[in-house]
């Protein structure tokens, strides 16, 4: 089980309380598809992904980004039980979606960059540490049921 210090929990929730989930989620997913274009392989049905502008403005990307980050919020609500929180989602990503878990790591790192860009100096090294731990734990939990 992951151990979170009180400080780590505080750093995570204080940032999260100021996050606009819809905007941040949309931006994170858009950046994933732009910075690592091969990740577009999972989104053939999303329509126009032909340029960074198209991706950033794509309504399906925005909606899906919101969905993904909302789910991330569940982990934050259940920091002491992230594994169980993501059991079903892990199975889904393996058995139905066939998503390489490397993508969870990529998205986690993108999220950190988006948060850093948004919070600038307030995203201190200590903040970064706590959030890096969180995204790693989430990626691990989502990969856990792969077989």
């Amino acid at each position, binding site marked *: 089980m992951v151990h979170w210090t009180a400080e780590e929990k505080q750093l995570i929730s204080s940032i999260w309380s100021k996050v606009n989930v819809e905007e941040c989620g949309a931006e994170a997913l858009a950046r994933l598809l732009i910075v690592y274009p091969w990740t577009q392989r999972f989104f053939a049905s999303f329509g126009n992904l032909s340029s960074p502008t198209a991706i950033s403005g794509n309504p399906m990307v925005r909606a899906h980004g919101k969905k993904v980050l909302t789910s991330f919020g569940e982990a934050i609500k259940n920091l002491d039980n992230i594994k169980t929180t993501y059991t079903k989602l892990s199975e889904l990503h393996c058995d139905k979606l066939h998503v*390489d878990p490397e993508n969870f790591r990529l998205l986690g790192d993108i999220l950190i960059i988006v948060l850093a860009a948004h919070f600038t100096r307030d995203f201190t090294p200590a903040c970064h540490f706590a959030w890096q731990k969180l995204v790693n734990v989430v990626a691990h939990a989502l990969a856990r049921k792969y077989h």
Partner: protein
Amino acid sequence: MVLSAQDKTNVKGIFAKIGGQAEEYGAEALERMFSAYPTTKTYFPHFDVSHGSAQVKAHGKKVAAALVEAVNHIDDIAGALSKLSDLHAQKLRVDPVNFKLLGHCFLVAVASHNAAALTPEVHASLDKFLCAVGNVLTAKYR
């Protein structure tokens, strides 16, 4: 990362030892990869990945042929694998981390069948070669 003249000699040497069994090595590398790294199966949801699978055999043959082609054009791997590089960038889009995994499994297959030939020096050369192949295949990703 550059392949020295010695590296090239070592790689050609080990592939000469593998000879006509390259296809088997390809299939074995894939089978090992699917077992040791189950996440790699996400790229083959349409495959039967069980031991002895005809699909894995066939795909192993393709992988081996590409490696042999690279060895035969070891001075210009990028040129030799240009079409494969395009395919991976535009269509397959396998995440770059996976090339290391397959390369590793290929080394394991070679080690298990050719322990004596896989000296530390040859091991180093073959590892560099497989890295180079992976780099070429992901070179056009972005």
